[in-house]
């Protein structure tokens, strides 16, 4: 803890100045670049590091310094947290947390393994993933699959308090990483494929008592919306209880809008930001009102809320009346960029639906909405006056109808980007985004709801985007002011790992085959590639210890990508090109959770 205390003194003054105290401990930890104190690097979700020892000139020399097997086989999302001399890592179910000693090549200081009912496992739709822990005020916060939120003593791993956030018998589970602001820890919920009603809940970090819960659907009193104050497209919403009236009967009660993505926070504006997921079922006809499309609010929305009261300051719905499972939970990155000659405080979101949105993060005003994958075809564009996508009938699974196979929709349900978080570099002003390049056929059909059972109601088949490079992913650099791709680097498989940018000018990402890849942030030129023991769906993080910069990543293929791609995708092999010949991910990698730590030669 020595280093950390030194650094703390240096940064306190700048970090706190001007802002409402966020959580001093968290602010201090994240302001010290030797730490990787939060899953997304900082409150703003930049996943950027000021460390510059590893740079474009020497990244090619990176070598593995030490490794650690987590002992768990399922998909490993999220990444290592580093505070001072300790690294904290986590696993999918059984949700083990390890505190590792960086002074001793990762000796285990403590580990925590909860006892969980195995009947939780089948209600985790797409693997038993967990996106990591949060560290604040001497505690480690873990959201377990079985809906237990637990605060552990960061020194000993002993539980201090725990609380239940949901019930797996109703299909509810936890997968998202908690975030701490002041004395509150924010917990989302998963289970969009089980008719769960999504919510975000704030618990007191001292004792686990519940402070507020904001539902994603239902009356304003439960969605914590004030229709006269909460803004939508720059104006008060005006109409009450849209979370009820935009649904068919009681469907809102099982309406989805889960909150399993990443949460960000602006300490100056004192607002937290998160996205809500798809409405259930995947069969849009069952969510229509009198045979007409209806918004299904507030699924597929970005919320900005007051962290103390939960009251929504503004909300923006990206995909009203979803017809494709474009689950809108992706992270909202907070950056200050120049638009039209003016510095703007913006929020940038790369949605599953393939549009990159830039909004004013104070008011929710929509500034830019452009496709970040050229193959996106379900909507021609977003109408900037209404904020609504202009949906093409040909790709509308609602217009085509129940029991009809709507063909060639891009992107596929896993989106042009899934949960894998992007990175923002203040040096280049650009966003570095891991993306998917996959399209689908989608056939909705009638389903019945039964508590705790899958509530899906569509069958879909996926294939690499036709008439393209044949691969299923790209790593791109994005200009969020213009809404343009700056460069794009094709990959054979979907890029399902969180990106990292660094002051050394190198961006890093992982691949499903298991490669850690380092590229030049200027042009995407590949500078480094190393194959880790399993496919990477975790996030690449960096930290400094004893004056040396390291790169850390959890391998362990799985998640939706790992399951869906294991057997390979079908589809027209014409036009797939050379890369399309790589079919099955199972030919490249197998399960296994391993931490790999890289550094430069001594």
């Amino acid at each position, binding site marked *: 803890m020595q280093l950390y205390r030194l650094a703390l003194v240096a940064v306190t003054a700048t970090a706190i100045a001007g802002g409402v105290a966020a959580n001093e401990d968290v602010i201090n930890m994240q302001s010290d670049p030797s730490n990787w104190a939060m899953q997304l690097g900082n409150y703003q979700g930049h996943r950027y590091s000021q460390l510059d020892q590893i740079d474009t000139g020497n990244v090619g020399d990176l070598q593995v310094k030490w490794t650690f097997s987590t002992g*768990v*086989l*399922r998909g490993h999302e999220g990444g290592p947290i580093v505070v001072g001399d300790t690294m904290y890592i986590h696993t999918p*179910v*059984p949700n083990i947390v390890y505190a590792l000693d960086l002074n001793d090549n990762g000796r285990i200081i403590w580990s925590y393994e909860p006892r969980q009912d*195995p*009947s939780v*496992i*089948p*209600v985790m*739709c*797409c*693997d*038993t993933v967990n996106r990591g822990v949060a560290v604040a005020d001497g505690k480690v916060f873990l959201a377990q699959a079985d809906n237990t939120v637990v605060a552990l003593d960061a020194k000993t791993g002993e539980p201090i308090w725990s609380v239940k956030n949901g019930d797996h018998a109703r299909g509810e589970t936890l997968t998202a990483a908690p975030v701490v602001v002041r004395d509150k820890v924010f917990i989302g919920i998963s289970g969009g*494929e089980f008719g769960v009603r999504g919510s975000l809940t704030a618990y007191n970090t001292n004792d686990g008592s519940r402070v507020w819960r904001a539902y994603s659907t239902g009356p304003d009193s439960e969605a914590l919306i004030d229709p006269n104050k909460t803004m939508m497209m720059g104006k008060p919403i005006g109409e009450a209880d849209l979370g009820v009236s935009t649904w068919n009967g009681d469907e809102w009660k099982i309406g989805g809008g889960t909150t399993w993505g990443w949460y960000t926070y602006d300490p100056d504006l004192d607002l937290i930001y998160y996205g809500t997921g798809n409405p259930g079922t995947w069969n849009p006809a069952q969510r229509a009102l009198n045979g007409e499309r209806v918004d299904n609010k507030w699924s597929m929305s970005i919320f900005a809320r007051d962290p103390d009261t939960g009251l929504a300051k503004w909300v923006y719905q990206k995909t009203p009346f979803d017809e494709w499972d474009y689950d809108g939970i992706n992270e909202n990155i907070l950056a200050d960029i120049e638009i039209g000659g003016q510095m703007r405080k913006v929020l940038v979101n790369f949605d599953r639906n393939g549009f990159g949105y830039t909004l004013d993060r104070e008011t929710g005003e929509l500034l830019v909405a452009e496709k970040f994958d050229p193959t996106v075809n379900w909507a021609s564009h977003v109408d900037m006056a209404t904020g609504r996508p202009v949906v093409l009938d040909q790709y509308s699974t609602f217009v085509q109808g129940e029991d009809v*196979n709507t063909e060639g929709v891009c992107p596929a349900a896993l989106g042009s980007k899934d949960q894998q978080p992007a990175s923002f570099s203040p040096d280049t002003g650009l966003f570095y985004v891991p993306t998917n390049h996959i399209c689908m*056929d989608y*056939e909705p*059909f009638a*389903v*019945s709801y*039964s508590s*705790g*059972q*899958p509530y*899906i*109601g*569509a*069958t*879909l*088949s996926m294939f690499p985007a036709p008439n393209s490079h044949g691969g299923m992913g790209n790593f791109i650099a994005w200009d969020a002011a213009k809404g343009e791709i700056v460069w794009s680097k094709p990959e054979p498989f979907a890029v399902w790992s969180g990106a990292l940018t660094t002051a050394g000018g190198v961006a890093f990402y992982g691949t499903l085959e298991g490669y850690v890849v380092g590229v030049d942030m200027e042009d995407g030129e590949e500078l480094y590639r190393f194959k880790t023991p399993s496919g990477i769906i975790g996030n690449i993080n960096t930290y400094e210890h004893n004056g040396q910069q390291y790169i850390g990543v959890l391998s362990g*293929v*799985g998640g*939706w990508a*790992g*399951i*869906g791609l*294991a*057997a390979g*995708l*079908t*589809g027209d092999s014409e036009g797939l090109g050379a890369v399309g010949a790589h079919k099955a991910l*199972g030919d490249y990698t*197998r*399960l296994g959770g391993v931490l790999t730590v890289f550094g430069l030669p001594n």
Partner: protein
Amino acid sequence: MRSLLCRIAAAIALVNGAAMIPAEAQEGTVPPAPNDLTAEIDPLDNPYHVDDGKVDRGTYNGYRRYHSSCHVCHGPDGLGSSFAPALVESLKSLDYVAFAEVVVNGRQAQGATGNSVMPSFAFDPNVMEYMNDIYGYLKARTDGALDRGRPQRLPK
């Protein structure tokens, strides 16, 4: 307690006729699957009709229900995933009765981590009502009568 509940549920489901098993099938022998287009579909002797890549309504529905309820674990087209076995292999030795038993009661694997669970679908109408269809589809895949991907429907 749980497995008792499941068994009761199974009995209810079976009585309801959602998954009808003729008495002579209880021996558990693997019946041939002749794909006789002239004979009625029944899950034991003639679980599917496939003609030139086109399938009967039930098999088509089985394709849809499988990809809605099972494929997240068992992979696309019954090919398996790192999470659950390839049912196109399983059905080489599992007959309809054994298949239905697993689907109704579920099963808990004791593998390396003991972490994969086959859930009970006894309470899921989206599966229980279409057990025959799902079996027919998977059986056609297992027998090599049907390729990967979305099948075409036979004209009625």
